[in-house]
């Protein structure tokens, strides 16, 4: 006999601005927004799960087939144990906690993690940049690298628009390599 689905309210799918409901059942997980769109992940596709603090409270990050991941924001701390049990019982997956830095430092190291560039402070993640959204990158100086982001929101700007990050620059001491002989003198 299968258990009824457990529902979590006010959960965001990815960076969507509208919350929806996430249901977790034996057969898999499904997120439904205020519209008719449903994002469903069948149980067989669920490979791993992570729990981390993000801007909109806690995030459940689920690794699915084809090395992809999907993220749900808006969980409260108290949801952790319930989720952990559900994921273990239904999908035999452990809910791993990913440690996040709140030190407020701007130095650390970059690390490529799947399709993201992670910035780590004292070995904890401070933020991640999805490389798929990098529109342009530049070596802006001897030790400077810039990443520009494309802005997917084509909607006309309104006062309620989010603050969109358009560019980040890194100071990378080891970024400069001597130009080859053919480039010298330029």
């Amino acid at each position: 006999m299968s258990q009824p689905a457990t529902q979590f309210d006010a959960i965001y799918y990815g960076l969507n601005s509208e919350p929806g409901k996430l249901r977790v059942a034996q057969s898999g997980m499904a997120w439904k927004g205020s519209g008719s769109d449903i994002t469903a992940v069948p149980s067989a596709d669920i490979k791993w799960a992570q729990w981390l603090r993000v801007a909109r409270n806690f995030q459940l990050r689920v690794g699915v087939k084809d090395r992809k991941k999907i993220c749900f924001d808006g969980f409260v701390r108290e949801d952790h144990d319930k989720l952990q049990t559900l994921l273990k019982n239904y999908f035999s997956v452990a809910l791993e906690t990913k440690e996040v830095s709140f030190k407020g430092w701007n130095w650390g190291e970059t690390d490529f993690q799947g399709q993201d560039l992670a910035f780590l402070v004292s070995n904890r993640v401070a933020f991640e940049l999805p490389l798929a959204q990098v529109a342009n990158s530049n070596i802006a100086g001897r030790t400077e690298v810039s990443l520009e982001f494309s802005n997917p929101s084509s909607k006309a700007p309104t006062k309620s628009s989010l603050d969109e990050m358009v560019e980040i620059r890194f100071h990378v001491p080891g970024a400069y390599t001597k130009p080859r002989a053919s480039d010298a003198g330029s």
Partner: protein
Amino acid sequence: GASGKEGKGWKKFQSYKGEGALPPDVDRLRITVDRKAQTVILPIHGFAVPFHINTIKNVSKNDEGDYTYLRINFQTPGQLAGKKEDTPFENPDATFVRSISYRSPDGHRFDNISKQITELKKEANKREQQKKELAD
């Protein structure tokens, strides 16, 4: 493993001890100034990323078309070419975030944030100056 080359004169500072101390309104995915923690919290792809005022050099703002752009410049090594470095770093060989730029259609709000950050920086500089004077 960077302890061996830890920068001279660097004094430890930290925005928050844990996630529970983040102000609740970071969930709006907008730049937040937390004066009490002397910290600016930037929304970066869903993360709420604190930057202590000591890491911030200055902010600049400009209007372009429908948008206002805000750029936060951070303290990084080697910015004073030819001059003696007077800002100590914990690890000068690390990778540093040098600047982050945002855009918003709400120029008034960005104007306000820009002023708040500048004010916070002024206060921090003033405190630093007072400490130096007391130490002399």
